């Protein structure tokens, strides 16, 4: 291979890249946080016995889930303002679109967790006089969360990676700024490698930590 790598451009443009990394960080924190919130709100409706509550939540989940995330982001940016007159800045459009997209998956993950909790443990809560809400808060919720840690982690990883979709609507996150830099410096190999390495460096510690927590939880509470 004769290509001569030149990573000195990163030093030269470190201010721009740090800023882009910061935007990615903000995008990730906001969209993951909001996404979990969307999931926590949608899941109880999705599980409700009343159809009036369950059907709308199911519809939202099924529709959003079937739209490719890139289409959802671009649609929210170009079509939503025309249809509703509501024009948000690209950054916030991206946050809300990714939060909605991952939120419906979080909702399904939480639902699966709650439904996997042994009915007997819920009855034990009721029989010591807990109200249904207390049972959810003290028994069903925590146990459901412990059970769904692996898919929950996977969904967080997906949501983090989806932050690059912002580059399609000119949000100045790491991929967008990286691409501008590669055009400017004619160094796409270095830049794209750096972007890939950036996500590995962000995500790997998170998944390793989550894996350690999973093992700890499993050994402590569930394994004979």
């Amino acid at each position, binding site marked *: 291979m004769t290509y001569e790598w030149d990573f000195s451009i990163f030093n030269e443009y470190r201010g721009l890249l740090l800023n882009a990394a910061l935007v990615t960080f903000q995008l990730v924190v906001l969209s993951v946080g909001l996404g979990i919130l969307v999931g926590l709100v949608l899941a109880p409706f999705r599980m409700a016995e009343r159809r009036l509550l369950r059907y709308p939540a199911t519809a939202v989940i099924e529709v959003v889930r079937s739209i490719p995330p890139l289409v959802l982001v671009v649609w929210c940016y170009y079509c939503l303002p025309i249809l509703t007159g509501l024009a948000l800045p690209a950054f916030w459009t991206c946050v809300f679109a990714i939060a909605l997209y991952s939120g419906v998956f979080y909702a399904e993950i939480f639902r699966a967790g709650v439904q996997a909790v042994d009915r007997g443990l819920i009855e*034990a809560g009721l029989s*010591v*006089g*807990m*109200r249904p809400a207390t049972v959810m808060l003290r028994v069903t919720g925590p146990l459901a969360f412990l059970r769904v840690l692996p898919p929950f982690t996977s969904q967080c990883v997906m949501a983090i990676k989806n932050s690059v979709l912002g580059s399609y609507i000119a949000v100045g996150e790491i991929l967008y700024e990286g691409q501008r830099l590669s055009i400017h410096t004619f160094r796409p190999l270095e830049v794209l490698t750096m972007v890939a390495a950036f996500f590995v460096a962000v995500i790997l510690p998170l998944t390793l930590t989550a894996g350690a927590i999973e093992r700890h939880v499993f050994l402590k509470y569930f394994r004979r």
Partner: protein
Amino acid sequence: MSAVSPPVSADVPLLVVDDLRKSFGAHEVLKGVSLSVKPSQVVGLLGRSGSGKSTLLRCLNMLEVPSAGRILLEGEEIGFETGAGGRRRPLPAARLARQRAAMSMVFQHFNLWPHRTVLGNVTEGPVQVLGMSRDEAEARGLDLLERVGLKDKADSYPIRLSGGQQQRVAIARALAMQPKIMLFDEPTSALDPELVGEVLQVMLDLARSGTTMVVVTHEMSFARNACDEVVLLEGGQIVERGAPDFVMSRSENPRARQFFASHRQENAGGAA
């Protein structure tokens, strides 16, 4: 003490079940069961699987909602209220929860919360439901664990305990609510044979200390030794009731004779 005239105060029933019915779809599991339990009385519910005895017990604290009939604890109807217009309607969740706290239940499969320590399982109800301070709940919880012989396991998680130990913790958890009545739903049926004894011993101690208990069981020796009254159910109806010795040995009721004869055969077969 004379068997002819028991003390008058013990004659006022704590729990009254009046013509209770329960259907699952078209299948009627309870076909009008009436029962009364006096303070400090231990009542055993016996019968084949499918006879409705577990459903009856689960109806008492509304884990199953009865289709008809009434349950009264100290004269207060469980699970329903009668409005001004005389219409009966289900109680709001908060009031039902308060009623349930007075009737703690011990389950066949223990149902200890796996994410709480042994002591955490015992203090959860008093702290969350009774509003007791954590310090007080823990002090009382340790006393109860000592009573069931598991004080040294207070900081373990349930998964580290044997089935018999878990069931003793479950009994301590139920006692921690200071219930008026304890409900046991086949508490030894899921245990290995060698672990049954330790749980029955705890229950026997409770019975002798004056705890009011309703026990669904297949343990004939427990029914004979600990119960003041046994009730035999078949096909969702009570077919015989009375003192253990009468129901289990002397009753002329053919269905009672048949049930207990088959149990004696089983035991004889087990011993051979």
